[in-house]
């Protein structure tokens, strides 16, 4: 037997894995490591490998922890962004019960219900940029429909997106538009797999309404809830597109989140090293969350066994 024939079974998995692993290393692992490396340097993002006459890099200078020190001690906007990330984190979760509510409402066998469901799902299909533009119009204090509605009730227009306190909430509310649609579809599919026997049994035992929902339905929707929570939180942490479209981080930087600040520092202020430092912080925050999440998942699976 040749070497190949003898070891075919052992080697085949590695051969099959090679393309995927090498792509993963090249496009995920390498950029992460490189970002961490860049974050210890002062670099404008231009001509990284240009050399001085003495062979040192001209534009790429080692500064150690300076970017991180600047970030934590110097930059008020970093804390504003961090706090905004926290607001996104907390308030985005509201999309989940709202999605559930909608799913329960739509989970009925009425003629044409499928079409109605697809209408409710529509926002998720629209590009975030379009949603951002639509909501900016909606909030426009002069020509927007929000101002029009308030006017009907005799109220003054609220300039949501130019108010430093309200603006972030205004954008989060816009993110509900696709967010609710997404969680709704998760719950609608979840509801189809709710066991009829258990519902029957619950009914016999006298459960109805909220008791039924809380003790019978929701526990069975747990897989859907899990995915909804994960997707919503990851979405909240990397929220960027709506901010870029609706406020550009304004007014005066009050709606920036870490991802947006990173983009702005690196690409507009020509501070690639500083932007990379923000990226590393964001990466660590996400890693902590994902580690905690995986830990819970494993524990739970063990418990079920």
């Amino acid at each position, binding site marked *: 037997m040749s070497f190949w024939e003898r070891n075919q079974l052992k080697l085949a998995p590695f051969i099959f894995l090679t393309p995927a692993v090498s792509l993963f290393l090249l496009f995920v692992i390498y950029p992460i490591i490189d970002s961490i490396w860049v974050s210890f340097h002062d670099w*404008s*993002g*231009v*001509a990284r490998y*240009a050399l001085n006459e003495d062979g040192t890099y*001209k*534009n790429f200078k080692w500064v150690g922890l300076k970017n991180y020190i*600047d970030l934590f001690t*110097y930059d*008020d906007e970093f804390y504003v962004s961090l706090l905004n990330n926290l607001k996104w984190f907390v308030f985005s979760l509201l999309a989940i019960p709202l999605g559930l509510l909608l799913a329960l409402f739509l989970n009925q066998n009425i003629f044409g219900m499928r079409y109605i469901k697809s209408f409710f799902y529509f926002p998720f299909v629209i590009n975030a940029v379009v949603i951002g533009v639509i909501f900016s119009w909606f*909030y*426009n*204090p*002069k020509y927007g429909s929000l101002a029009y509605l308030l006017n009907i009730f005799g109220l003054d*227009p609220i*300039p949501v*997106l*130019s108010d430093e306190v309200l603006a972030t909430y205004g954008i989060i509310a816009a993110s509900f538009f696709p967010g609710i649609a997404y969680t709704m579809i998760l719950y609608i599919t979840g509801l189809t797999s709710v066991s009829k026997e258990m519902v029957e049994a619950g009914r016999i035992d006298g459960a109805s309404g909220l008791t039924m929902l809380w003790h019978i339905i929701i526990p069975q929707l747990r897989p859907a809830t899990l995915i909804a929570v994960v997707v919503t939180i990851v979405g909240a942490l990397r929220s960027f597109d709506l901010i870029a479209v609706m*406020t*550009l981080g*304004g*007014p*005066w*930087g009050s709606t920036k989140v870490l991802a947006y600040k990173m983009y*702005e*520092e690196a*690409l*507009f*202020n*020509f*501070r690639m090293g500083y932007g990379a430092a923000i990226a590393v912080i964001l990466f660590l925050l996400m890693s902590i969350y994902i580690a905690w999440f995986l830990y819970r998942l494993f524990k739970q699976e063990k418990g079920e066994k």
Partner: protein
Amino acid sequence: MKKLLTLVILFTSTIASAGTLVINSNQSGEDAKAAFDQYVADFSAAHPEVTVVVNEFEHEAYKVAIRNFLTSEVPDVAIWFAGNRMKYFVDQGLFADVSDVWSEYGLNDSMASSKGSLTVDGKQYGVPWGYYQWGMYYRKDIFDELGINTPRDFDELKWVCAMLKKNNYAPIAIGTKFLWTAAGWFDYLNLRINGYQFHMDLTAGKVSYEDPRLDDVFDKWAELVNGGCFLEDHASYSWQDAQSTMINGESAMYLLGNFITGNFKAAEMLDKVDYFQFPKIYDGVGMAEDAPTDTMHIPAGAKNIEDAKKFLGFMSNPEAASKWAKSRSFLSPNANAEPPSDRFQKMGFKVLNEASGIAQFFDRDANPDMAKTAMEGFQEFMVKPDREAKIRARLERERERIHGSL
């Protein structure tokens, strides 16, 4: 989609072989593209031996793309901006010295007025193709109806504001969502109060933002803000949104660049609009102006430098130069170009010729990161003037980080 397109263009641009002249252009939008195409056509007619390939980028996307293509897919000519925006790339060694183009084509004489904004350490690194004035555009019909004359000094400006306000107009339109419009107000107040040299020192990072000489600037600005001179909720609006209030006749004045007249023309209301120079504030302070200059450069890594120099030198052709500038509502930096015939361009030409100094604009004179922080501060000040001390302290901290302590 546009980004994807520019990417595709970026990659296909490398196919062009030697002998062709590759130009990366930010002249996007119907008018701008037509104007630039005309200039290229004129150039091709004069130099049939050169094949020109133009890669068009969307104007804002170009600002990000240029840093990539200057180091990777280097074109032979790149369109950009004068002042600090240019100096930034010169400092990194990414723009080539084109002083010989200036001497060979006689630009030292015909473009003497713009020379300073394209010079770093005595060498020229680009050729200007157009510039435009800033100033107050106003609804003449509203002024006439209320019997108001254009203000000649700051007190009159305040009085005009009060009169307009009394008659339920928003006196001054402004949309600060994209920040830079607020910097226009800072530029003019500072130029009128502290003069040209102080303003240039400040934007160069040589003066503290907590310098007492700036107190008066912020005081006067706060008088306008507290007097309700500016359009309400301006942080919600882009400059175009704010412009529509002026077109609708809700607001009466707008401090902006001459490119706004193109939109008045599109709205068919040019006859209702007029221009006045930003009024003086103190006697004895020279009337300096903002006049951003748009330019062309040869990247340091360009392959076809010979033809690129021909292309830049072609700006010495007065006809081609004036055609390009005019169709953009710009002024031509070429002194031999046909003098402007348009009413607004004429006024701008006069104002700029008499100006005691020409600034580029805050975000072109200052460092990019300084400009960003400062303009956010200006926007905040225009909504919350009582935060002046805090804002100026923040600006000064950023200035110190970039330029070092004084």
